[in-house]
């Protein structure tokens, strides 16, 4: 180095140090696990008992801890402790992957989002569950599908979720209308209601169109509701079709015509729920959790008692929901897989599923719970929810789901913002998906 004044050198050093920290912060994990291998692995040994940890997001209702206490009382050979993860799904996923990479033997049962199944299974982060030890007949079929990858089960369904159409039954009743089963009927209803109400804030319909996972869900539903697919039954992307284009261009047209409010491209679940609760929407697509919040009579909801739910309307065909929910899986490097397996079977018992739905309002994965009188009394939308889940389709099951969902969001958001035409956006998406899904 040429001669530099000491003061400058101190400064260069200081600047370099601050720069160093960026590189250090972004270093990321080291070697990936080399486990798995391309040969078909033998089924894991689910016999060893001992203490384990359950890795899941926040236990907001406190019911999970009660369930764990009950399990531990009945199961002296191995106790389960709750390892709480952040609320954010991306952070949960990252912590699970990182702890697989360091082969954490305590992380035994993980609560796996339905869209992670392919990635976790393909990378052997989780164990395949042999059907003789893990029967699946009591579960709803779509939930089992969501935990299945290459004909092998990798998770035991814990909760499920499907989209619902919330509608203002007071307004529909006033104009003598029935809940719509298609977008055309929904539009016809709005054409009567909105001019009649003379409320400048009242818009027809909204889902979640901010650029995030919710947009993937809503795009997926629009495409399937128009008879299209994103990934075909053969596992190959097939999204540049007239049906899929119809699905996306309907959303774009509705937004351009003001049937979907312009601001909805910045809405996630909560903004949409608020708009519906403020009486600014006639129809709203959201999840089951909204039902009890919108029914609150403490003044937070202006539509309490004035709304009901129906299955999602389709664009040309019947409405199709995207499937949400979580499955419990057994981590690859868990030490005590016997206890983990016992816990999976115990927590999926209809009695536990019922206690969970009563405490959290999250839809159960076991079919019989939906007709339980106590559950239906507390959550009157459950029969509709059951129909929604039974007809639901999973989002694309691909290893690089993070890339696929971003590509879908790029295409859908660009079209919604008017930067690209729907057909061009879908052709670009098709090309991108073909490089991602091989």
């Amino acid at each position, binding site marked *: 180095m040429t001669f530099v004044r000491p003061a400058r050198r101190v400064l260069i*050093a200081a600047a370099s140090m*601050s720069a160093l920290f960026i590189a250090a912060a972004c270093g990321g994990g080291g070697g990936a696990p080399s486990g798995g291998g391309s040969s078909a692995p033998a089924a894991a040994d689910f016999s060893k008992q001992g203490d384990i940890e359950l890795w899941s997001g926040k236990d907001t209702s406190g019911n999970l801890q009660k369930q764990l206490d009950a399990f531990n009382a009945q199961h002296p050979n191995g106790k389960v402790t709750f390892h709480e993860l952040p609320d954010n799904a991306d952070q949960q996923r990252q912590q699970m992957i990182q702890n697989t990479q360091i082969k954490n033997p305590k992380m035994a049962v993980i609560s796996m989002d339905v869209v992670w199944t392919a990635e976790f299974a393909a*990378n052997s982060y989780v164990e395949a569950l042999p059907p003789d030890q893990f029967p699946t007949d009591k579960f709803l079929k779509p939930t089992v599908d969501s935990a299945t990858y290459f004909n092998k089960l990798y998770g035991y369904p814990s909760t499920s979720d499907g989209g619902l159409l919330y509608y203002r039954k007071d307004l529909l009743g006033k104009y003598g209308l029935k809940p719509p089963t298609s977008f055309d009927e929904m539009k016809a209803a709005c054409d009567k209601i909105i001019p009649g109400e003379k409320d400048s804030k009242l818009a027809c319909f909204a889902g979640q169109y901010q650029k995030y996972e919710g947009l993937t869900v809503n795009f997926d539903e629009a495409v399937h509701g128009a008879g299209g697919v994103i990934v075909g039954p053969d596992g190959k992307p097939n999204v540049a079709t007239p049906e899929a284009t119809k699905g996306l261009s309907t959303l774009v047209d509705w937004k351009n015509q003001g049937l979907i409010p312009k601001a909805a491209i910045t809405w996630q679940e909560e903004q949409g729920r608020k708009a519906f609760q403020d009486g600014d929407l006639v129809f709203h697509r959201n999840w089951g959790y909204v039902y009890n919040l919108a029914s609150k009579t403490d003044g937070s909801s202006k539509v309490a008692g004035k709304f009901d739910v129906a299955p999602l309307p389709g664009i040309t065909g019947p409405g199709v929901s995207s499937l949400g929910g979580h499955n419990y899986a057994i981590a690859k490097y868990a030490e005590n897989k016997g206890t983990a397996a016992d816990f999976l079977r115990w927590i999926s018992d209809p009695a536990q599923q019922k206690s969970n739905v009563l405490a959290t309002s999250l839809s159960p994965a076991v079919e019989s719970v939906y007709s339980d009188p106590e559950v239906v009394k507390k959550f009157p939308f459950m029969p509709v929810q059951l129909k929604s889940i039974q007809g639901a389709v999973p989002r694309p099951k691909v290893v690089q789901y993070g890339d696929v969902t971003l590509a879908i969001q790029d295409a859908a958001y660009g079209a919604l*913002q008017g930067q690209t035409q729907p057909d061009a956006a879908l052709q670009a998406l098709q090309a991108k998906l073909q490089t991602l899904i091989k």
Partner: protein
Amino acid sequence: MATATAEPRSVPATEGDGHKHKKNALSDGQGRLAWILLAPTLIVILVVAGIPVIMSLRESLFQTNTGVDPNTGLIAGGEKFVGLGNYTNIFKGGDIVQGSYGSMDRFWNAFLNTTFITIVCVILETVIGVAMALIMAKAFRGRALVRAGILVPWAIPTIVSALMWKLIFDANGVMNKIIGKQILWLADTGASFWAIVVADTWKTAAFIGLLTLAGLQTIPAEVYEAAKVDGATTWQQFVRITLPMVKPTLVVAVLFRTLDTLRMFDLPYGMIGPGKYRVETLSIFSYQEAAQTRYGPAAAYAVVLFIYVLLVAFLFVRVLGADVIGDADAPKKKRRKKTEPPSEEAAIETAIGEGIGGAH
């Protein structure tokens, strides 16, 4: 400090080769003492910065295997050495996105975002910060309150202010109520860029203001009095006296802001969200790649950002003569450096310099 004064007496006694050092009474034996005293710090820096940086550099030369077995659906896993492949891929343009600058590779889009956000933010922050400093330097009632008030935004954690501004820039938020139009700041539009600029300027102009204020207070009042006697206007006083005299401090403040803004992550990520190409910075892009378990490319992007930041810092020091230590001190050191063996300070500087050189 008690040990610091006690040690030198014992050190020469134990030092066998004290011969050379005897020429220099001032630094005799202190080099070793300095090393001992600084060792804990250096070890911590090595562990929390040095080793991770070297691991990052190593990681940037690898790629995770992603091939899926067509029969089992499983991935073989492991990593392969790709040399500079992650770096050369930057120039291949495989991942085209639509940002503010048309269709381009996601890396270059993030690079341009980083650069333009930095340029716009730092210019605005400097102008507003200097104005703040000039106001704060004036004697008036409630000056302490104003000084404290100006610092409040800076004291709020960035992620908190990101969420706060997210509410303000909401479609039904305060900002749209004030301007009376519905601008979708939080969608991925050109307005998102300006929302970031506003939030960042609001937050960090105070930093430049505070440092500049410290510089202003070192300017003697006589200089201004003399200027007044000579009939200089306020503007002339500002341009001919205030700016030149505050420049050393200001340049350092601007340098620190520039380096900090080049690394911007939490404000766009928390406020506008991930995957928004109009505000995606290099830090966000690198983080997103790491989240997709592509650690190699993520590390490569971080290293490129690291070199970029280093380059900007170097330009600042060379072109603008940024200087963190007062000029009065420097000539003295320069003289000492020529005639004497390296002092402990110089030794440490060299050590740090070498440490960084080694990291490359």
